């Protein structure tokens, strides 16, 4: 177990070079170095600037609709017969997921730096939609890179982005999913670095992205901590959030890092099962450290260092790496990581819909499934906070397909 001093250090991470212990850093081609240094300087200045903070807070309140509720899922909790489950309702945000917290922040950075164009990568399409949304609002040109396979399974979000005025580029290289979309977005940025702000959607990538995405998403944990204290008089016993790159999870976890008694559980995509190799769960599978997309982290790569193709029913978790801060929190023993398989996530999707009338995104369904496993093993006066990171409307097509229904 980490000591109090360890946790105080952990809370202050990353270091000046963007390292979270041995993870993180800035592993990029020289072509991007100047842009990243400029972004870092801009961010460090603006994040402390009261005017920027006021504008960010105002947008979160009146555009996103924050604070998002912390909802006691009484029926679900009663049925499971153990701990009380509370849902942090990020699904109720404008655009339907936590992603917008970050795109609001990064779009403000783009605005303050005067870039007329933004680009983004997307898996499930939620980050793409959130980027297209803020671009529409600020009158910025927007290009979203999305894997061909994800375009197929998230057709609704693709059309949403187009309605919002964004150009959606189909990425046909590699595995045609999120990782390849990110490669292509980085190539775009290298080429258009003078006029483009690259909005990374997850707490990964080269420094300062993992840090700034975490800072923008930490509103989730700050609110949840206060709401839990107000509603129950105490802190939660367990936090549960799904982890692809891990932006919703780090947003929930970070404000609790020094609350040593609060367990943090990140839930990765187990796909067909860790033992099959067909998953997207580097931390749960114990993947060795590797370097991809500008940071060192736990990475699914083979003996020759080639990145391995992943599988998950949820496009948003279908990624071979993970945000470096999660790799670090695992290494120091502050957070735990586990995996939920496709079947379990689909079951949780249906179950939460039927018991609470809340349809979770397939990504968030992984976190719900873990809570459903854990709650019965806990006492009735214990509290689990689940980050319900997004709503499931976008996944109806995928679930219907599994049910053999074609619209």
């Amino acid at each position, binding site marked *: 177990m980490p000591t109090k001093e360890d946790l105080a250090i952990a809370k202050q991470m990353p270091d000046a*070079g963007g390292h979270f212990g041995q993870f993180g*850093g*800035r*592993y*990029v*081609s*020289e*072509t991007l*170095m*100047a*842009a990243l240094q400029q972004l870092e300087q801009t961010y460090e200045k603006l994040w402390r600037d009261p005017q920027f903070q006021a504008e960010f807070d105002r947008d979160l309140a009146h555009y996103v609709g924050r604070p998002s509720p912390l909802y006691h899922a009484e029926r679900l909790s009663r049925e499971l017969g153990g701990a009380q489950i509370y849902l942090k309702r990020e699904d109720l945000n404008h655009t339907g997921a936590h992603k917008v917290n970050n795109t609001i922040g990064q779009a403000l950075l783009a605005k303050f730096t005067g870039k007329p164009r933004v680009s983004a990568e997307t898996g499930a399409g939620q980050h793409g939609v959130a980027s297209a949304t803020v671009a529409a609002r600020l009158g910025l040109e927007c290009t979203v890179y999305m894997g061909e396979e994800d375009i197929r399974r998230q057709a609704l979000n693709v059309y949403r982005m187009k309605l919002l005025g964004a150009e959606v580029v189909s990425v046909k*290289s*590699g595995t045609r999913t999120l*990782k*390849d979309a990110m*490669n292509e977005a*980085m*190539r775009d940025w*290298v*080429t*258009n*670095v*003078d006029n483009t702000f690259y909005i990374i959607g997850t707490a990964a990538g080269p420094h300062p992205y993992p840090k700034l995405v975490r800072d923008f998403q930490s509103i989730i944990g700050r609110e949840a901590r206060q709401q839990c204290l107000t509603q129950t008089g105490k802190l939660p016993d367990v936090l549960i959030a799904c982890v692809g790159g891990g932006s919703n999870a780090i947003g929930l976890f970070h404000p609790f890092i020094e609350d040593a008694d609060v367990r943090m559980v990140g839930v990765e995509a187990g796909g067909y099962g860790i033992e099959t190799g067909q998953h997207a769960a580097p931390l749960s599978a114990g993947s*060795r*450290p*590797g*370097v*991809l*997309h*500008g940071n*060192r982290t736990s*990475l699914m*790569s083979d*003996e*020759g*260092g*080639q*990145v391995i193709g992943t599988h998950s029913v949820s496009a948003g978790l279908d990624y071979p790496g993970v945000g470096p801060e999660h790799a670090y929190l695992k290494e120091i023993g502050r957070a735990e990581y586990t995996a939920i398989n496709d079947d379990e996530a689909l079951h949780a999707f249906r179950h939460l819909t039927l018991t609470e009338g809340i349809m979770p995104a397939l990504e968030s369904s992984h976190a719900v499934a873990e809570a459903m496993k854990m709650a019965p093993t806990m006492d009735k006066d214990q509290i689990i906070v689940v980050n319900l990171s997004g709503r499931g409307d976008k996944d109806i097509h995928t679930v219907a397909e599994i049910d053999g229904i074609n619209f």
Partner: protein
Amino acid sequence: MSRITESFNNLKSQGRKALIPYVTAGDPEPKVTVPLMHALVESGADIIELGVPFSDPMADGPVIQLACERALLHGTRLIDVLDMVAEFRQTNQTTPVVLMGYLNPIEVMGYAAFADKAKAVGLDGVLTVDLPPEEAHEFNRLMKASDIDVIYLLAPTTEPARVEKICAAGSGYVYYVSVKGVTGSASLDVAEVAEKLNIIRQHTDMPVGVGFGIRDDASARAISEVADGVIVGSVLVNKVAELAGNQALIPEAVAAITASMRQAMDK
């Protein structure tokens, strides 16, 4: 003195510039690579940059992405590429070979194991696209101990103070990326490159190679007038791709391109 430094010194004394072709190892099949390297040398190449295939070549355009995919289809790993260098060295002990690629394959092999093996096979230099000097202290130490030159990139966006820092960390030569973009993308502006090279030379005595955007005899010649080395990649890899169905023709056809560039540069 490293083989790379010796090569540049010799060229300088002859008043010539280095021609540095890049090909992806194992593309389209492993057996093509070593004969292709020899053919490049015969056509007038001074240093060979051998690409290590990677699943996610983020700094590369479609031409080299596809080359990586072809090479990976036949399972060309970093260890295989090092073996190709060893095979090349059996009959050529003079032409420097530089590996160019991404960090993860080296990361997974382990820096120390890579350094040992690289020395053993007679490798001369390594250019790791996504390993900037800030993250490379341990890597540099081990490469230096194995007498392997570490070659770094400079970009149009690199500030002068950073040029100095990067050149201090590297050895052999520095690689100036002449355009903002991925490999094989835009065509370059020679006047702009010349201006930037003047700034770079205020900060280093190392030879400067220029790459990205050199696609024909005219651009090779123009760059050879301002740089110490001309690095050419995508146009060669494109030819390899064209002849993937007729592999016996690859060495000669690719070498014809570099031979023509060599002539243009030496005029």
